[in-house]
């Protein structure tokens, strides 16, 4: 436990060191990337030395709260964003608003896109879905099935055709029909594949999305940091969605991405149904990560 060594009222340097070591291991064991945990812990140490904690009473909770405050302030420059309002606002200025989904293979782009289409549809905003994954087997049929279930138009192209032109066609279609939203599905791509990363950048150049949403699996380990490094080198990212959080609410990769991308996480995917999308709250996540009851402050 991270508090067993605490004996004094104001946290001294030595005990902060011990505390920090325990917290470091907690973070790493929750899959926060090692280099990120290092950076966080050294910043945390500086903040924690001298922090006041009661000698008696619920000392453990007090220490956790100090850690919580310190950790939260370290990702404080990344504001939680209200994606829904931002899109609705943008739709008043520009039609269509273009949202593009991107990320490595199998992390949940297509499903997340469908969830977001469902969300906006229930708010009265229709979408055109662009099947710009012209690569993976069944990708187009997967999006078409979502379109059918949601009652939304899907624009696709032949397998092997240029994804940028599919995306462009979808934007044109939305523009001509006055449909407010275009959601672009792209093929999963490994960050190590330079050609595929260039292709992604090309789609961004061609359709200039208002929002490029990076989708990642909350279960990722240290690779999250590498992914963040490669992706931020090649493409622009406005915000993120973490998926499969229903499997791993503590997922440390969420902190890794927050800390390295410094972009808001719009939503968490918490299941396979359309409704399984919840707004991300930094406070709740950090509280969970360090074992503080959400709202227990």
């Amino acid at each position: 436990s991270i508090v067993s060594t605490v004996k004094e009222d104001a946290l001294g340097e030595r005990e902060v060191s011990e505390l920090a070591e325990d917290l470091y291991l907690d973070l790493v064991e929750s899959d926060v990337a090692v280099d990120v945990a290092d950076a966080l812990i050294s910043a945390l140490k500086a903040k924690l030395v001298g922090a006041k904690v009661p000698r008696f009473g619920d000392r453990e909770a007090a220490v956790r709260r100090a850690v919580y405050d310190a950790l939260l302030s370290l990702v404080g420059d990344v504001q939680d964003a209200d994606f829904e309002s931002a899109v609705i606002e943008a739709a008043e200025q520009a039609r269509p608003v273009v949202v593009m989904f991107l990320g490595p293979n199998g992390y949940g782009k297509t499903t997340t896109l469908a969830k977001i289409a469902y969300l906006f549809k229930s708010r009265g905003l229709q979408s055109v879905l662009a099947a710009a994954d012209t690569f993976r087997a069944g990708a187009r049929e997967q999006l078409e099935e979502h379109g059918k279930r949601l009652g939304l138009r899907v624009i696709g192209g032949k397998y092997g055709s240029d994804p940028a032109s599919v995306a462009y066609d979808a934007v044109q279609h939305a523009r001509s029909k006055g449909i407010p939203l275009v959601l672009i599905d792209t093929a999963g791509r490994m960050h190590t594949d330079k050609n595929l990363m260039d292709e992604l950048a090309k789609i961004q150049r061609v359709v200039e999305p208002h929002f490029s949403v990076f989708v990642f699996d909350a279960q990722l380990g240290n690779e999250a940091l590498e992914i963040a490094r490669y992706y931020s080198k090649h493409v622009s990212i406005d915000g993120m969605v973490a998926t499969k959080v229903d499997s791993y609410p503590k997922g440390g990769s969420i902190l890794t991405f927050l800390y390295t991308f410094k972009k808001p996480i719009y939503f968490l995917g918490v299941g396979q149904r359309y409704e399984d999308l919840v707004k991300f709250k930094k406070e709740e996540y950090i509280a969970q990560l360090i074992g503080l009851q959400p709202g227990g402050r």
Partner: protein
Amino acid sequence: MRPLTELFSKLVEKIRGVEYIDEQTLQEISRELQRSLLKADVPLDMVRAFTDTAVRRIREERPPPGIPVKDFVIYVIYQELVKLLGGEAEPDLKLPKRPYVIMLLGVEGSGKTTTAAKIALFYIKRGLKVGVVETDTIRPAAYDQLKQLAERVGARFYGERDGNDAVGIARRGLEQMKGVDLVLVDTAGRHKNEQSLLEEVKAIYDAIKPDEVMLVVDATVGRQAAAQAEAFMKYVPIHSVAITKMDSTARGGGALAAVAKTGARVKFIGVGEGVDEIEPFSPRKFVARVLGM
């Protein structure tokens, strides 16, 4: 990422000319090693067990003559990791009977469907008749995905486009595969908190009694890889493992822990999206990667 050998070269510099490694050096070695393994996603308890064993052996054993200390340290760790993978021997990929039925199992998006097609092609290239069965009724167009892949690799396919009875599809699928040497039964993705899906896969297993259950693990997943394996094992046995997305830079410690947990042998690794991007597993290569070499 600095390779482990490089990390150690610094330490070895320090101890050159010294008769024995002192405690402080040993502690430093142990810390560097721990950090490196944590970066590879090896869970903490395993990391501790390894480094404790390594430190103890270095303290007690002498490196074989001519072997530098740094190599000895790595060798000890290497040996311990290989043990977890069931030894240095390459996996046995021969099919013990015909038809042989493999059911694939794994978390959402781990690569099951792709791996099914890759394994199909692997054996088709070796002259076998292979069939694939899609029992995923959850993910939209799972049917189309495997059907398209089956056409690409030349495997027989069975699925039901709008079916919702995975157990029935599995059963009917196997009936359609008479004369086939190998059948790969693909299943929907599921994870440790999806109770009804876990029960579903058990029902499929009970209905078709596959010869082998293969766990498909995404190499980029961290500590959850082992947690998922552990949860699955409560429902079905796990006989083998395929590790996917090894074309990433992930070092595979999460997958390693999953393998250790199941006691199953790794058979294949996936190194790309293409149907031919699959390799038989090499324990040596894999451990070297986990160690960052």
